């Protein structure tokens, strides 16, 4: 028998898509029963009250959560988001309802043994509700009380060898695509680089020293399956320099219809017979492909590695062997200055242990941003405010036409005095000898 009536939420139990309401209810019941006799460290009816307050929000069309204030674990500036509800009398179970961000493993691979350990801990010391996963990538423990924060942190670190993720003006929890673990398109080991940098920069991740948040995301190729280009202050996107490897027999098999295009993922509808001209060659954005008799040719110098042809014919075409990644910087959501996507800074760098070249760029960017960035100014906003040139200076990277989609169309060039013959100091009276007033 539910603690609160939730007629509106109940409606969301119908329909085929997994119902979060049904899931909440099953946990609520389970806690009420408590078959395993868990010594719940936070109110047993926390989930009932969560359902109740959510129902109230559905009714009011407004949230009932308050800004969290500063809660956290000793010595860390992030990893916890404080939350209190604005109706503690009605819903004492969620009076405190803080979030903990637990740094997910690379590629979000899990062993059930470990997952169950997290469940045990969270049933015991928290609400038992999670997000698998948060948008940044963390495992989100949703809802516990202030006294439990240190306890949970202690158990995580001591028992499970697991640290918290980021929040606040820190490096945020880096995230990667599945990459080489299960993807033939991966141009570098996203998990290895993500893990290395996450550990290298633990201090930046846990102790706020930045003007604002900072995010890394790692995509193994330009398909961008972790959407790094849209949501990381630095996106690491795999790419390569040499030829796309072509298996001409397989090309013929695609042309002959023996292999379905795009790995068969258009099979829900009859698109007619595959045409390499229509579906590949003519869609190539650089028009660098053509057939020479039965041979598919690619002028790799003109290719911009958009992945299309490889995506369409994964059995026939393969990424090159001279692999590395591009670094794009400044992506962010619209607050305050409008959204940005990452802008290309490093066209190509090898991604090999110990990744020193990559770290140099990162640290050059941070030094500049920490020096010049205003409070709550994202890297992208600083780039806009001071100009891409400053970023190049900060990282010691030479200007390159690849840095721009197109050159400036306004001629307003800010020349520096040292660039101009004779400098800027002039004697107006000298000038007046040739030019009367």
């Amino acid at each position: 028998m539910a603690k609160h009536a939730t007629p509106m939420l109940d409606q969301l139990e119908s329909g085929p898509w997994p119902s979060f309401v049904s899931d909440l209810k099953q946990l609520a019941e389970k806690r009420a029963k408590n078959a395993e006799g868990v010594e719940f460290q936070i109110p047993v009816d926390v989930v009932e009250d969560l359902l109740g307050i959510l129902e109230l929000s559905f009714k009011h069309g407004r949230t009932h959560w308050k800004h969290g204030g500063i809660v956290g674990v000793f010595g860390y500036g992030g990893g916890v988001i404080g939350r209190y509800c604005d109706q503690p009398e009605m819903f004492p179970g969620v009076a405190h309802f803080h979030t903990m961000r637990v740094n997910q493993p690379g590629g979000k691979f899990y062993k059930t043994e470990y997952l169950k350990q997290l469940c045990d801990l969270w049933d015991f010391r928290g609400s038992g509700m999670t997000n698998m996963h948060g948008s940044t990538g963390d495992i989100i423990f949703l809802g516990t009380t202030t006294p439990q924060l240190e306890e949970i942190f202690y158990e995580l670190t001591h028992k499970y060898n697991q640290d918290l993720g980021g929040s606040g003006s820190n490096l945020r929890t880096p995230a990667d695509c599945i990459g080489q673990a299960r993807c033939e398109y991966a141009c570098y080991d996203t998990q290895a680089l993500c893990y290395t940098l996450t550990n290298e920069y633990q201090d930046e991740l846990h102790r706020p020293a930045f003007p604002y948040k900072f995010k890394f995301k790692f995509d193994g190729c330009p398909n961008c399956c972790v959407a790094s280009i849209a949501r990381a202050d630095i996106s690491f996107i795999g790419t390569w320099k040499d030829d796309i490897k072509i298996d001409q027999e397989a090309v013929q098999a695609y042309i002959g219809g023996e292999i379905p295009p795009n790995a068969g993922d258009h099979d829900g509808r009859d698109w007619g017979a595959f045409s390499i001209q229509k579906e590949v060659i003519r869609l190539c954005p650089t028009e660098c492909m053509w057939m020479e008799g039965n041979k598919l040719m690619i002028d790799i110098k003109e290719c911009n590695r958009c992945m299309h042809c490889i995506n369409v014919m994964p059995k026939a075409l393969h990424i090159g062997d001279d692999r590395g990644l591009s670094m794009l910087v400044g992506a962010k959501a619209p607050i305050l200055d409008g959204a940005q996507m990452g802008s290309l800074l490093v066209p190509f760098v090898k991604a090999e242990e110990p990744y020193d070249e990559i770290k140099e760029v990162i640290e050059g960017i941070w030094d500049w941003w920490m020096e010049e960035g205003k409070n709550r100014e994202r890297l992208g906003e600083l780039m806009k405010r001071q100009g891409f040139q400053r970023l190049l200076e900060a990282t010691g990277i030479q200007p390159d036409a690849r840095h721009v989609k197109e050159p400036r169309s306004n001629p307003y060039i800010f020349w520096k005095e040292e660039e101009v013959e004779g400098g800027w100091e002039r004697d107006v009276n000298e000038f007046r000898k040739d030019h009367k007033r």
Partner: protein
Amino acid sequence: MAFISSGYNPKEPMKDRITDIGPRKYDEFYPPVIAKNKGQWQYHEVLKPGVLVHVAKSGDKVFTVRCGGARLMSTSHIREICEIAEKHCDGYVRFTTRNNIEFMVDEESKVDPLVKDLESRKFGAGSFKFPVGGTGTSITNIVHTQGWAHCHTPATDASGPVKAVMDEMFDYFKKHSLPAKLRISLACCLNMCGAVHCSDIAILGYHRKPPMLDHEYLDKMCEIPLAIAACPTAAIKPSKVEVDGQKLNSVAVKNERCMFCGNCYTMCPAMPLADKEGDGIVIMAGGKVSNRISAPKFSKVVVAFLPNNAPRWPETTAVIKKIVETYNAGARKYERLGEWAERIGWERFFEKCELEFTHHLIDDFRDPAYFTWRQTSQFKF
């Protein structure tokens, strides 16, 4: 319930404290077939919606079964995932970047039993627990945020609209019938957690009323200078007010300069914006993040406002359904929604999707707005 200590001693917080250890290492959790063939994958096939096979140079294969999940997930649900993974996958499982669950097996014969098992599991009230799908040219899970379930600034809920929309889109989740991938994302306020600004279709919570001013408490609850500094349009000024007789330091807001971003509220809880009629949903469309064929694109605002009609947000689901169906009927193979809209022209997009073009959709935010106006005589009648 008695307080049970983990061993942590508040008096000596630093006593054998462990910090800065980071996440668990990825390779602890790789299934054997992954560990063995990492970096050696040769190609993949999508066998049917939700089922992939990747083939390695070694000849090894890994079969992946993807199923949807509400990422607002209970430990009970996670335990059930573990049970399935142990039954079929030697205790390995993963989650995708869009909050789907992927079970991997190393033999084709293991696929059908796994799929059958997953499809058979339902919640008491009837919804699927683990619907298989979301691959290829389907509509996969909706990336979303907290909404009314946990955050303090939302202008709409997250899990509610997501459930409502995915119920409508369920057939598309189960089929490879679209011209290309179509990504739907939701963010419950302008902060856009989840970066919906580059999605084929974005559902965005938006406030439409300037903050209320809780003068009596403002100075107590907030750092006035921070609140003022937070405003991107400089709509907030310090001001002195008199509330029953007593002079108080507070702020004044130039309402017509407010763009409802909620930054002030993030800095100052005494400036709440939330409102039943005022809050609702903005629909954006035409974004993408992949670099395939065309460069990544921002989503564009195509509907300025839809009400928060809980629990099912019928206006929102109807608009999205119409856009998806129109795209599905009109786009070419491999053509993303934004590529389609640009090819036919946005004037056609609005006509075909039967959406009204209102003044709200014309950019008037700062200098770059100019570049979204039409500087050519080219247009379609």
